[in-house]
């Protein structure tokens, strides 16, 4: 039994906005795999909840006319992984969220909840950062769309104003066309874990597959919120797919990332792993893009 002050069940997105405005103290609950756990811990005990779990209108993956991939915020991790659109265009996202917790968590956990928590370890977040995802937010003023980097304000805080909820995540065609990517979750065990560090890389190769035209790399748990390693990205652009350049790229991420020392892992250990992951994720991305790594 949870210490819920009151529960309001939204019947539509519009209704959800109305409920949130009527109950400004209320917390949104989507799948609940984080909210309910925090409530039990006492952190959110005694709070009102607006449940949006029943809103099928923001559940599911679709391809819009201009080729944008739309992921409804309530889509569960397991449904993202199994979705044919995701598999065809941005399979790495399906693979990333297939590493969240365990199977039951992947059935209840939603991509919207994963990003709205504002936590750096979210398995979906680094891949969404690395693919320049756009966050769609619906509120009393209507719909607004912002880049995912702007959605994250600080640890645990995202850009949701009173009466607003996240309704979709969009990947524009230009962000995915021609790119292949790979995500590596580094955790202490192979299931039921949170990332010690997560690294998502994607690459666009030249027509002859020998040059990296564009490389994007994002991390979870390399700073207070998910982040891109922009110096490393700039370094890799236009470089040949050689062992030496890949290593140099990987080493460059240290100029971008800022992991912290905690009981979960030491800073220098996280830095070391970040470099290893950058190298391995880029190599795999190149391989997926049909490239070859030259000595």
């Amino acid at each position, binding site marked *: *039994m*949870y*210490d*819920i*002050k*009151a*529960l309001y*069940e939204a019947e539509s997105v519009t209704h959800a906005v109305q409920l949130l405005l009527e109950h400004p103290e209320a917390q949104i*609950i989507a799948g*609940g*795999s984080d909210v*309910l*756990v925090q409530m*039990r811990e006492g952190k959110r005990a005694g709070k009102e909840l607006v*449940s949006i*779990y*029943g809103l099928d209108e923001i559940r599911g993956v679709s391809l819009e006319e201009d080729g944008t991939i739309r992921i409804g915020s309530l889509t569960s991790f*397991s449904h993202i992984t199994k979705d044919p659109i995701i598999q065809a265009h941005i399979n790495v996202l399906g693979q990333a969220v297939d590493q969240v*917790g*365990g*199977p*039951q*968590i992947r*059935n*209840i956990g939603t991509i919207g909840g994963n990003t709205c928590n504002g936590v750096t370890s979210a398995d979906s977040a680094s891949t969404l950062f690395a693919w320049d995802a756009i966050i769609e937010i619906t509120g009393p003023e209507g719909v607004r769309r912002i880049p995912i980097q702007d959605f994250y304000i600080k640890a645990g805080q995202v850009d949701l104003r009173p009466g607003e909820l996240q309704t979709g995540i969009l990947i524009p065609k230009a962000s995915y066309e021609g790119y292949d990517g790979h995500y590596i979750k580094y955790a202490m065990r*192979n*299931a*039921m874990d949170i990332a010690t560090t997560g690294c998502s890389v994607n690459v666009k190769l030249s027509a002859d597959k020998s040059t990296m035209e564009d490389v994007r790399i994002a991390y979870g748990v390399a700073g207070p919120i998910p982040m891109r390693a922009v110096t490393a990205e700039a370094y890799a652009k236009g470089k040949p797919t050689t062992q030496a350049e890949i290593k140099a790229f990987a080493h460059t991420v240290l100029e971008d990332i800022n992991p912290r020392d905690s009981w979960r892992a030491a800073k220098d250990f996280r830095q070391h792993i970040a470099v290893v992951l950058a190298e391995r994720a880029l190599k795999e991305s190149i391989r997926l893009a049909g490239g070859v790594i030259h000595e």
Partner: protein
Amino acid sequence: MSNQYKLVRCIINGKQVEKMIDVRASLTDMLRDDYRLTSVKKGCEVGECGACNVLVNGECFNSCIYLAVWADGKEILTLEGLAGPNGEISDIQQAFIDEAAVQCGFCTPGFVMSAAEILESGKEYSDDEIRKLMSGHLCRCTGYENIFRAVKKTMLRRLGKNAEADAV
């Protein structure tokens, strides 16, 4: 406001039921307390151990972190509902018995329900895939070995591969 109730209508183990449920209740609370389905176990109440796992519309959920009111309109299956109408137990339950995959038995209901979902797909999974699909459960007695055998053997037998099953 601690007295908020809602009528929850759902199908539990094949039977249409309805009850006024405290909105603060988890699905575990509802199944254990209101329907006395005590195979649904509490091991952590935060979705980490898998002991409370049940099927909702054919998919596995940790009922401890699933609000009972969300069950409205859904079809719920617990271990009690896995046996046939005359109490004949399913092949996966029999496999757990035959393979000595049951020890203290506390995690067993959750594991069997995950296995039930996997087997329902009719697919043949690799060993690594089986491990991943069953990885939402913790067990401290078995080292997962005999649970793995029970699931794999049942999968192979359902696919008509009896000789391979015997060799697991």
